[in-house]
């Protein structure tokens, strides 16, 4: 069995607001093995990003707080770790690429300086050597003229190029896990494909594990080996990617898959693209019972009583649904 890198157990991250406690992440279990790509899928506001930020403890505290659960990084719990210990893990062990390449880089420093900053911090290199490494990283992520481009500022790069810079920065200390938080959402379609391709290429070069957060099922199908489907702060289904697309068990997953436009069937049968009715429920004091029940076409009385636990329905396939 592959070595377990990250294991999240019963993670609960809540945010105190004026209206009450928002349970953004409310009991998430998730694990990632060495070298594996895990897709985390769900609608906006279902807790994917908060889960990712909790792993690196980048949640603004207050108002956010990890109320319960463990985040085991190679067997060591990160939740009680102090700020200094946590800093040694960030970028060096677990790196993150954010959704918004336009705002994720500091506009007043050159991209070279920003990449070199991580290298100097974790690898203890000098200014010159770190800048050379930064240029090397830009070359690795296929940015033309890296020797010249290191001295450019973020505003001199396009969105796709900035995301490449972010990836270069994230990979510059050769982390064991890369969290990609919707890395392609803010980019246009052709660039999306390039960035996904780059991520796959980087994975084969550096051999790190990837936690790919996205709301696009298509992205997951292309890149991940295993998929975790989240809904309203909880994991509702987890399966190997092929299995998930072949036999989705949770009605939410089924809905997500049906809402992907398919060029092969749609054009022939002229079927309507299905959307999941309703919106993600408020995570402010959510009611007991299955959180998807109000939007679920198969919901019955039992669904409203208690949130079903994740249960194994096949090898590596878990689902939180009584059906």
């Amino acid at each position: 069995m592959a070595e377990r890198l990250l294991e999240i157990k019963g993670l609960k991250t809540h945010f105190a607001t004026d209206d009450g406690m928002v349970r953004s992440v409310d009991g998430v279990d998730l694990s990632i093995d060495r070298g594996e790509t895990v897709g985390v899928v769900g609608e906006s506001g279902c807790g994917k990003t908060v889960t990712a930020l909790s792993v690196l403890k980048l949640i603004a505290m207050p108002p956010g707080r990890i109320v319960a659960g463990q985040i085991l990084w190679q067997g060591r719990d990160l939740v009680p770790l102090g700020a200094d210990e946590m800093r040694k893990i960030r970028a060096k062990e677990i790196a993150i690429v954010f959704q918004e390449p336009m705002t994720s880089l500091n506009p007043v420093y050159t991209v070279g300086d920003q990449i070199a900053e991580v290298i100097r911090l974790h690898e203890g290199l000098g200014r010159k050597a770190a800048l050379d490494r930064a240029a090397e990283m830009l070359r690795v992520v296929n940015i033309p003229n890296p020797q010249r481009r290191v001295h450019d500022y973020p505003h001199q790069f396009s969105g796709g190029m900035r995301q490449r810079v972010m990836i270069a920065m994230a990979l510059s200390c050769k982390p064991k896990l890369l969290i990609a938080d919707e890395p392609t959402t803010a980019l246009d379609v052709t660039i999306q494909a390039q960035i996904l391709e780059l991520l796959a290429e980087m994975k084969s070069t550096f051999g790190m594990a990837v936690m790919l957060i996205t709301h696009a099922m298509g992205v997951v199908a292309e890149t991940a080996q295993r998929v975790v489907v989240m809904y309203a702060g909880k994991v509702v289904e987890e399966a190997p990617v092929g299995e998930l697309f072949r036999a989705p068990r949770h009605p939410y997953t089924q809905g997500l898959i049906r809402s992907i436009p398919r060029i092969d069937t749609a054009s022939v049968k002229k079927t309507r693209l299905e959307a999941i009715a309703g919106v993600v429920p408020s995570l402010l004091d959510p009611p007991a019972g299955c959180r998807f029940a109000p939007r679920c076409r198969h919901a019955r009385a039992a669904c409203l009583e208690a949130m079903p636990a994740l249960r194994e329905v096949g090898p590596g396939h878990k689902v939180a649904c009584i059906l």
Partner: protein
Amino acid sequence: MAHYLARRLIIAIPSLLGISIVLFTVLALAPGDPFEELASNPAVPPEVRASLRAQFGLDDPIYARYLHWLLAMLQGDWGFSFASRVNTDTLILQRLPTTLFVIGSAQVLALIIALPVGVYAATRPYSVFDQIANTLAFVGFSLPTFFTGLLFILVFSIYLDWLPFVYSDVTATGWRWYWEHIRQALMPIAVLGLFQGASMTRYVRSSVLDMIRLDHVTTARSKGLAEGTVVVKHVVRNAMIPVVTLVALQMPIVFGGAIVTEQIFRIPGIGSLLISAILANDTPVIMAVTFVFACLVILFNLIADVLYGWLDPRIAYR
């Protein structure tokens, strides 16, 4: 960079010309006459007054007088003070260093207070420290300098008797000379500096608060940088860009405040020179001093623009 500076200096010329035209016209149209006091002097016959007026060109049309003033100015002749019978430039040069010393030190004091307090308050919004800093800042810029000035004099000169309450001639020599000068400058510097520092603290705080929420700050934290480094390198540096503009825009107010403060503490600076010149109807001096103020304001705006470009690489020196 040098090209940019040269271009900005050239652009400053029409502004200064415009300012001088407006100033000159307003002063020429204002009632009052530097030779008025002579009218009440029985020893000076009206003909002498009239010939004096003619000699100094006071009867010429305004545009002719302006052109005359401008030509003289371009040749380095700032005019002649009717009241003190001295060249205006000598008068100003005697007093300018004192004013610049007081204003400069006050600005430095303001920065020393505003930067750490504003940044620290913004990193802990709504904490006790933040609340206290906010309240004090509010009090600080609500109290006019003429009030705090008098209050300081009352407390530090009259009750405590620590500091001299007005400027006077320093007779001491050597180190004592410097010490006496610093002692009499302390209160005006504190009054102006605290007033400036109060409003600057609020600028710094709100600017840092705006920056600290931005995505690139989360990126910086995700790199594993220490919180202090994140704040200094990735928050404060960016937050300084709007602060520089605000501080530059405040310079005219600073000079205005300095005039009042100089009056209270009897500082022999150009502010009190301006007031005495106004009282004496000494038009050439009024003109010259206001013009110096205008030049200083333009100079500080230029410095702000240069700083702006240095802090924000998205702004090109073009």
